[in-house]
């Protein structure tokens, strides 16, 4: 079998289990809310319109946005609950995904439920009253059984929608089949993307067929058929969930990663080291940049790699640049005091904005530093990624060195690298650990005035793990051990078009190369 597919299969039990747990819970909760709403809407003309319009309105919000919006909402609620009750909860992972998907599942159930109940023959309603049923008996013994086929058709639609939309819960930190799709998109691994789509589609189809069996059973008053469908669903959910029982062990560590290749590789490296020392490690990938630190501080992930400049600006809200070492020391002190987070140390490389030139051109012009560049800038053209010239980093170096380029151009990153290698531009903005710097034979220029903020890659440990001897022992050897060239090579082996490596393979190769295995 193709090693990529093999690797995808290895993660299937976990991803699948979470996907099933999430979809089934959302659908169950959706039913619990939607059915009473449908009953109320069918009973009372005045609330019918608002209920149906509200459910339709939710449907018009793109599902990814709905999932994302629950994060700030839950943050606010959690903060309020911590103030009032002294107890907060995580705004990440299962909860926001569950709530968003529950809302998303409601429209078809509410709409079909209302229609189903309203379309029961008035003569049958009159008979139900005439034989002496209470309103409740009428609902449970007559209206709901007769509306059941229509309601089940709505549940089928809701199930297919929910299973599809559940793939979007990966970015809010909830593991699902979407993990294949999101990490595949990031590393341009289309096999992985397809695998995720196929798995989710297959799950949706099987669920739909089983619910269809219940629907047909309800329509034909064939109890056996309906029971068969229900049993199929129940057994399917139980079997799918068994892998989660072992994942819940307290001895296991959760390694977080943001959504780019370097993060995947480092997370794999960390996971491997934990496992080597007898721990169990699982990954939580594709966390949004803002989400990752909060996930760590709340203990939802145990360890991940972030960058000093990012933490400095986004977590501590600082705008100054006292220098690389000072930033690192201040971060270590303040994160420990404020959140109890341990900054274990720097891995030894930076992933910062840096200006890069072709090696031959830099040598020919005698340029090694940004000072050298500034002196020659009037005859040179500068290329930047789409946002670079709008960023504070550009303002900072421009003020410090007084550039005066002949022209400035913006590119999508891939084309920016093509432009510098072909000579269309002389110097570009790059990330210092980008694998293409080495691959395209570029050099990065030094920043003697320290105008660019430092972006040291640092290992962060969650508050609950700061005294975990096994974890610290597993990770300490990494501190200061990864030179930027080695990281570039590893990143490039995952990003390149031909002979792509998977992050886990790149991580192993990197460990081996650095003698860390």
């Amino acid at each position, binding site marked *: 079998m193709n090693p990529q597919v093999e690797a995808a299969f290895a993660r299937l039990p976990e991803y699948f289990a979470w996907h099933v747990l999430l979809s089934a819970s959302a659908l169950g909760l959706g039913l619990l809310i939607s059915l009473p709403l449908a009953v109320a809407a069918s009973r009372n003309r005045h609330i019918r319109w608002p209920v149906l319009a509200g459910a339709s309105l939710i449907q018009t919000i793109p599902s990814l946005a709905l999932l994302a919006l629950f994060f700030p909402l839950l943050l606010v609620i959690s903060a309020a609950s911590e103030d009032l009750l002294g107890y907060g909860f995580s705004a990440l992972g299962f909860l926001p995904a569950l709530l968003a998907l529950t809302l998303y599942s409601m429209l078809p159930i509410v709409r079909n439920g209302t229609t189903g109940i309203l379309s029961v023959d008035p003569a049958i309603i009159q008979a139900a*009253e005439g034989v002496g049923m209470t309103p409740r*008996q009428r609902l449970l013994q007559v209206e709901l059984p007769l509306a059941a086929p229509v309601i089940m058709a709505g549940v089928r639609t809701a199930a297919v929608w929910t299973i599809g939309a559940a793939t979007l819960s990966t970015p809010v930190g909830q593991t699902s089949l979407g993990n294949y799709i999101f990490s595949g998109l990031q590393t341009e691994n289309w096999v992985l993307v397809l695998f995720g789509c196929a798995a989710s589609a297959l799950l949706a189809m099987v669920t739909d067929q089983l619910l269809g069996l219940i629907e047909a059973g309800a329509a034909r008053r064939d109890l056996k058929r309906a029971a068969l469908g229900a049993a199929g669903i129940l057994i399917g959910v139980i079997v799918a969930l068994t892998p989660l029982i072992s994942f819940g062990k307290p001895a296991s560590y959760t390694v977080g990663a943001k959504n780019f290749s370097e993060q995947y590789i480092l997370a794999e490296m960390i996971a491997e080291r934990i496992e080597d020392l007898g721990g169990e490690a699982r990954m939580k990938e594709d966390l949004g940049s803002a989400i990752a630190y909060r996930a760590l501080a709340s203990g939802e992930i145990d360890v991940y790699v972030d960058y000093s400049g990012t933490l400095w600006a986004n977590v501590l809200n600082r705008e100054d640049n006292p220098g690389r070492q000072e930033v690192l020391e201040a971060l270590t002190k303040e994160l420990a005091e404020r959140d109890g987070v341990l900054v274990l140390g720097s891995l030894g490389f930076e992933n910062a904005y840096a200006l890069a030139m072709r090696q031959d051109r830099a040598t020919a012009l005698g340029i090694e530093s940004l000072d050298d560049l500034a002196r020659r800038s009037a005859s040179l053209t500068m290329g930047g990624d789409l946002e670079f010239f709008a960023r504070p980093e550009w303002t900072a170096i421009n003020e410090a060195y007084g550039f005066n380029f002949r022209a400035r151009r913006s590119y999508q990153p891939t084309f920016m690298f093509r432009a510098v290698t072909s000579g269309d531009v002389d110097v570009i903005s790059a990330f210092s650990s980008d694998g293409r710097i080495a691959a395209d034979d570029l050099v990065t220029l030094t920043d003697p005035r320290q105008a660019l903020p430092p972006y040291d890659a640092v290992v962060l440990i969650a508050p609950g793990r700061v005294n975990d001897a096994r974890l610290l022992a597993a990770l300490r050897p990494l501190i200061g051990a990864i030179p930027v060239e080695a990281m570039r090579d590893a990143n490039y082996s995952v990003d390149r078009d031909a002979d792509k490596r998977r992050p886990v393979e790149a991580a192993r190769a990197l460990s081996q190369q650095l003698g860390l295995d």
Partner: protein
Amino acid sequence: MADPRIALARVTKTYGAHQALADVSLEIAAGEFVALVGASGSGKTTLLKTINGLIVPDSGEVRIEGEAVAALAPHLLRRRIGYVFQEVGLFPHLTVAENITITPKLLGWDKPRRAARAAELLELVALPQEMGLRFPAALSGGQQQRIGVARALAAEPHIVLMDEPFGALDPLTRDGLGDDYRALHERLNLSTVMVTHDMTEALLLADRIVVVADGRLIADGTPQALAASTDPEVAALLAAPRRQAERLRARLGEIA
């Protein structure tokens, strides 16, 4: 003297500007078979539905067997009164036997007692026992209404209300079912109130005919008393069946 089975005293019901019932008083004794006759919109169905609480009067009082209907929980009231109507309203998701014994089930009868009652009622309405296991959709219109009658009688009520019960049936079925029901009425000593717009049906089945027009009772008596009435509206109502009867006699006389 014992309380009448059904007593309406000065009952009024208004829908917007339309007065469906205007100060109606009526007493029905045990064993009586009363037909409520009148044009559509005359208020006869409204009158019938005030008896089992499907319609609540604006003023006045309805009593059954001495108890004020307004003081009883509606569902408990209806379990004491059989109700048959034109559309039948059998529950399509329940078997015939389950349909018949729905009120006994609501009253908490145990399973063996309900099964015995279903068998008894199928026999009473002259249907084969095996029909109990079928679903209503498999039955003819006449069979469905027989089940409707059986369902109304299941909890052994003293009162049966019928709203155009045979209106949707073909004449032959209608005739047979009407006669069969009349016999059951006698045997069980019921008080039956039947709404119909068909004077012929009323004359053939009822011992007492009440004529309703514009929410008022304009005549109340035996078929013979009605036939002797000089009231022009009552005479007009009787004109059609009279004419039919004469024409039938003439034609059948010719054939004979």
